């Protein structure tokens, strides 16, 4: 039986690339936040033409969305770091370690936190839409798939934990 091509180096490269892109994204929205604080006109100009867009609540809401976005970037960073650590254990030849079960569980919690942030953005946008009816149909990207992924990750983490224990039991068996 032939082994499938080793995708490990590609995965590491991809994860590292995503970490850099995510950092750039965080920097960009951080700059945007600072810019809207220093030059509030920027934000106002972006919303010009929409009824009620000049309400301070709307501007505060949009700044809150940007802050949640930065928090989201941190969540993505933590997920990618944990994933990279898992990939590194595969490269080192021993992925069935207790640390990876813990990492999978951490990823599950971070993805859950990310989905919590998404709901928060949805709530903020919903609140802002009371002042600007034109934004009441903004899609915040709610989907059941990430929630299913969270469940799957928790189950996988448990399976990994049990598997690691079982292997530890077998170690030293003759």
């Amino acid at each position, binding site marked *: 039986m032939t082994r499938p091509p080793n995708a490990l180096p590609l995965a590491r490269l991809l994860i590292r690339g995503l970490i850099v892109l995510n950092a750039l994204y965080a920097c960009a929205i951080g700059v945007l936040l600072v810019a809207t604080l220093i030059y509030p006109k920027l934000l106002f100009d972006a919303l010009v033409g929409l009824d009620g867009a000049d309400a301070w609540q709307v501007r505060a809401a949009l700044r809150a969305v940007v802050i949640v976005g930065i928090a989201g970037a941190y969540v993505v960073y933590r997920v990618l770091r944990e994933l990279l650590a898992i990939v590194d254990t595969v490269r080192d030849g021993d992925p069935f370690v207790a640390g990876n079960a813990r990492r999978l569980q951490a990823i599950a919690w971070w993805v859950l936190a990310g989905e919590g942030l998404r709901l928060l953005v949805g709530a903020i946008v919903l609140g802002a839409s009371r002042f600007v009816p034109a934004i009441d149909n903004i899609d915040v990207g709610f989907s059941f798939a990430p929630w299913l992924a969270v469940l799957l990750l928790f189950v996988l983490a448990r399976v990994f934990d049990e598997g690691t224990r079982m292997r530890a*039991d*077998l*170690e*030293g*068996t*003759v």
Partner: protein
Amino acid sequence: MAIVVRLDEKLHERRMTLTELSERVDITVANLSILKTGKAKAIRFSTLEAICAVLDCQPGDLLAFDPTQPPQEE
């Protein structure tokens, strides 16, 4: 560990080397060495059966409990 493996004594009685036993029970010398030196954490029944068959002995001839020994570390 309080479980003492007496494989060495049995091999000596039977005038058999570890390598010879390894070939006859189809278990690597490395694994038998782990067993002989008391470093094994567990032994399969199939391994015990194979060794007992070759050395013509009982499991009790190979294993003993010595309460004066310190317990196994986790």
